[in-house]
């Protein structure tokens, strides 16, 4: 299934990828509907988001078939930079939430 002989049908890989992306999307929507435990749902969605990204990058954008130099530069360049950015802003967002909590309670209708 994962083998795509380049000689046989050069278009096949796009439609196989299309089918897999579609199945994953339906699975993600299904997971959303079943009200899974929050942590499990988040991990499930993030994992399949990365699988989808890898399918698009690898098969649609041909990164699987480029020299590994290029693929690593692209994938790691984006991933590592994004993770650094996210890691640095997250404690600050918690700090903002902690310090602004009393003010936010005033217009809120909830009792807690």
């Amino acid at each position, binding site marked *: 299934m994962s083998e795509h002989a380049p000689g046989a049908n*050069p*278009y096949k*890989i*796009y*439609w196989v*990828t*299309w089918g897999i*992306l*579609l199945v994953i*999307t339906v699975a*993600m*929507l299904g997971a*959303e509907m079943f009200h899974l435990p929050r942590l499990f749902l*988040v991990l499930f*969605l*993030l994992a*399949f*988001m990365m699988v*989808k*990204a890898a399918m*698009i*990058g690898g*098969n*649609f*954008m041909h990164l699987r078939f*480029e*020299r590994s*130099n*290029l693929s690593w*530069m*692209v994938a790691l*360049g*984006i991933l590592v*930079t*994004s993770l650094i*950015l*996210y890691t640095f*802003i*997250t404690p*600050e*967002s*918690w700090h*903002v*939430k902690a310090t*602004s*909590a009393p003010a*936010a*309670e005033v217009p*809120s209708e*909830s009792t807690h």
Partner: protein
Amino acid sequence: MESGAHSATMETGWGGGAAPFGASWQKTMMWIFIVTDALLFSGLLCGYAFLRQANSAPWPDRTEVFSIPFIALMTFILITSSATMGSAVTAARLGDMKKALMYVSMTIVGGAAFLSCQAYEWSHLIHEGARLTGPIAGSELIEKGVTPQFTQAFFVLTGFHGSHVLSGLVILIITAIRTSMGKTPPQGVEMAGLYWHFVDLVWVFIFTLFYLL
């Protein structure tokens, strides 16, 4: 003399004499552009994460604000247009420019359909009272728990993505016209395809992180 040195550099392509990525300079430049553009979206998504994590009010339930089946349809359209674009790149590489033109045209139809869906989604939400600065006073969106942070994240993320779809559409239309005139080399279709797949890639992240998570 200066122009002579310049053209010599152009001929060797790299000046350094080696092609570290084993790709043409066009493709290398396209990838560098895609990395920088991806970092733009990375910044926007992190901004969204900040807004959401710093917000002490609960984040609104997306299934109440949006029609998730409609968003799923938009995702389906974009994934399908990516598959037709990949087929166009392959057809061009095999020298079948007629088939490439057909697939590029199908991709243009998909892109236009996606943009139409997004225009509908935007106008629907704006009609309900959503603004970039927040839901307007007294609108039913406030009852659904929509906060200013939510509408800001929504309009900025989908707006930037939609503008990329629009520019991708312009690139595809130019590619289609030039292909029909016999002026587009196979690599031209591949460049347009890389950009189009990138737009699809960004949607995967927005769809998961904003609509589902």
